[in-house]
């Protein structure tokens, strides 16, 4: 750690607070992730990626930077990674999932904004995130009002660029988005001084496509009745995808996939057959936010699918590779990203259809709609999603919460009671036995 302290100091971090943050992440990791039984061996890489996120990975980025490359920070899966990579720019997701940094944001920002924004900004304001001072530019977007206004404040601290994500899905919205994608290309070209060409964009598009494909294949295994991987571990893999080098990440996802395939062949699972299958749908859960997954999986349930930005929405759909020229490839990229059904769109019926489809494919016994407090988009859309699920006969529970631990017991009561309702028709104390 001593070597890294020099780096952190150089980045202007408050070492004491940063240490406290690392301790809080370690203790969350120990109690929620490491405590799981029968974890796949291949998870070791992803565990380590979280552990070294603030040291080795930061040093790695500094080394890359010293060779003249640029690093950008992103906050949304709408920012096209392949374009940044093609310009020789490394994208790193900066979303905060820790309660620890929230008070630092509340000293400047209103309390009534979502914990993800507060946590992220607090990491910067409290001088506790090594990434914010490492990046050459931050790229925001317009997926909610809280973020839009936050960028204006963040922009006074670091170079800020904002992409406009349209709010509808019509023709002019698609055109607007295509223009935004092209402007983003120009912006990263300007930042790195390197032109995006058809060839290098194709190469980088394939790198990102392979990453999404590997994640998709891994998650397919969660459709099986005997689950070879827990929901918490699958989430951890998705979380690491946001900060890791894409090619190295893909390689390790493939290693994990092969291990899980062997598990499937040998009938090895991490939960008992018949464990209640839960799909989590709604807001993103970024490191170290394992709160809801942990409650579900320590109350006798298993998370089998994440219809979130740290799950399906991130790895679904690839960019069509066939493109005769750069313009056509940029169109393909713009098209792929506009298929992400964020609740910032109106109307957003595609998401309702997607939730139903996933719930059926993953044979979810119930869907938990996970809403970060003050995330109005997903919170209000939950009404439509709930209606559709009910019509399809799929039970659902909406949980609105933030990153703090103070509502742990009431949340656990709700989740346990929800699991009880899923099990109640097939005998009484099944869930309870699992708990004890």
């Amino acid at each position, binding site marked *: 750690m001593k070597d890294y302290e020099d780096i952190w100091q150089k980045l202007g971090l408050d070492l004491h607070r940063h240490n406290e943050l690392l301790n809080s992440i370690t203790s969350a990791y120990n109690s929620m992730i490491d405590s799981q039984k029968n974890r796949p061996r291949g998870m070791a890489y992803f565990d380590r990626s979280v552990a070294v996120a603030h040291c080795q990975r930061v040093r790695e980025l500094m080394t890359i930077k010293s060779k003249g490359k640029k690093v950008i920070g992103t906050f949304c899966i709408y920012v096209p990674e392949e374009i940044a990579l093609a310009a020789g720019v490394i994208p790193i997701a900066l979303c905060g999932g820790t309660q620890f940094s929230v008070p630092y944001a509340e000293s400047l920002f209103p309390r009534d904004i979502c914990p993800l924004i507060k946590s992220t900004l607090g990491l910067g304001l409290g001088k506790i995130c090594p990434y914010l001072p490492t990046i050459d530019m931050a790229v925001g977007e317009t997926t909610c009002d809280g973020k839009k206004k936050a960028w204006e404040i963040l922009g006074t601290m670091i170079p800020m660029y904002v992409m406009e994500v349209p709010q509808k899905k019509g023709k002019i919205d698609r055109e607007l988005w295509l223009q935004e994608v092209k402007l983003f290309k120009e912006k990263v070209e300007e930042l790195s001084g390197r032109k995006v060409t058809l060839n290098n964009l194709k190469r980088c598009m394939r790198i990102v496509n392979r990453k999404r494909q590997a994640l998709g294949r891994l998650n397919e295994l969660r459709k099986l009745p005997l689950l070879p991987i827990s929901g918490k571990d699958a989430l951890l893999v998705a979380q690491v995808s946001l900060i890791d080098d894409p090619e190295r990440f893909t390689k390790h996802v493939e290693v994990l996939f092969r291990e899980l395939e062997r598990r499937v062949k040998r009938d090895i699972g991490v939960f008992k057959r018949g464990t209640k299958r839960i799909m989590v749908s709604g807001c993103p859960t970024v490191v170290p936010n394992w709160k809801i997954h942990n409650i579900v999986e320590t109350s006798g349930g298993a998370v089998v699918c994440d219809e979130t930005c740290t799950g399906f929405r991130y790895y679904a759909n690839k960019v069509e590779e066939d493109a005769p020229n750069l313009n056509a490839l940029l169109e393909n990229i713009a098209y792929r990203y506009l298929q992400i059904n964020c609740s910032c769109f109106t109307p957003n019926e595609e998401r309702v259809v997607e939730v139903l489809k996933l719930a059926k494919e993953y044979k979810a016994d119930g869907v938990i709609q996970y809403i970060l407090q003050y995330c109005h988009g997903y919170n209000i859309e939950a009404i439509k999603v709930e209606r559709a699920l009910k019509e399809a006969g799929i039970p659902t529970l909406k949980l*609105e919460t933030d990153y703090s631990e*103070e*509502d742990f*017991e*009431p949340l*656990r*009561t*709700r989740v*346990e*009671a929800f699991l*009880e*309702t899923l099990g*109640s*028709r097939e005998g*009484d*104390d099944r869930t*309870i*036995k699992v*708990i*004890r």
Partner: protein
Amino acid sequence: MRVAGIDVGSRTIKLVLLKDGALSDFMILDTGHEPLARFKEVLGKCVAEKAVATGYGRHLVKSHFDGAIMTEIKAHSLGAHHLYPKCRMIVDVGGQDSKVIRIDGEGHVENFEMNDRCAAGTGRFLEIMADTLGFSIEDFGNQALKATKAIKISSTCTVFSESEVVSLIAKGENRQNIALGIHRAIASRLSTMVNRVGVQKDIVFSGGVAKNKCIVSLLERELGIKLYVPKEPQIVGAFGAALSAI
């Protein structure tokens, strides 16, 4: 066979003993500041072959006794269904949370709502408001029923209401009228929750707050139906837990 149900609530611990399926004894004690010690005390008093614990403190006690645990939501459903087989909904307002549970004809939970993380509109809220107005909690509802008019209380947030009540007292408003306003605020909050789950005809009202006659009558008026209030509304959860042990 003797079985026990223990409901470790935030304010009180309830013990119910059943002998051959019928209620033989029950006990209600303050939880105090050491719920585990209190639980062990209660456990020492129960002569039973099987016990099931429920309530807010169930996880705290689960490794300290030989029995299963279940959520209070399930326990209340079992208890209410047994007491009133026709019942399709339970409104349970305890020390620090309020719940509305919809059940089917066999007592299985179909849907439920719980208040969020704060104590707004719960037993604890009533205690604090009664205290601010200088009434005892037992007498609070009766005093509110004597009001000549209701003063509008705009919040069921414990903190905001307390300051609102303090300023009403300072304005010289009648205490009973303020009390009625507080009761109305809770009843309206509860009826919103009931409507969100989908109001049913046969509703059991349980938990300590069901002992408050003013809340019962206001809620009945809001919902336009009669509520079933068990003779001992506080022990419905413990009763349900005991039933599950049979």
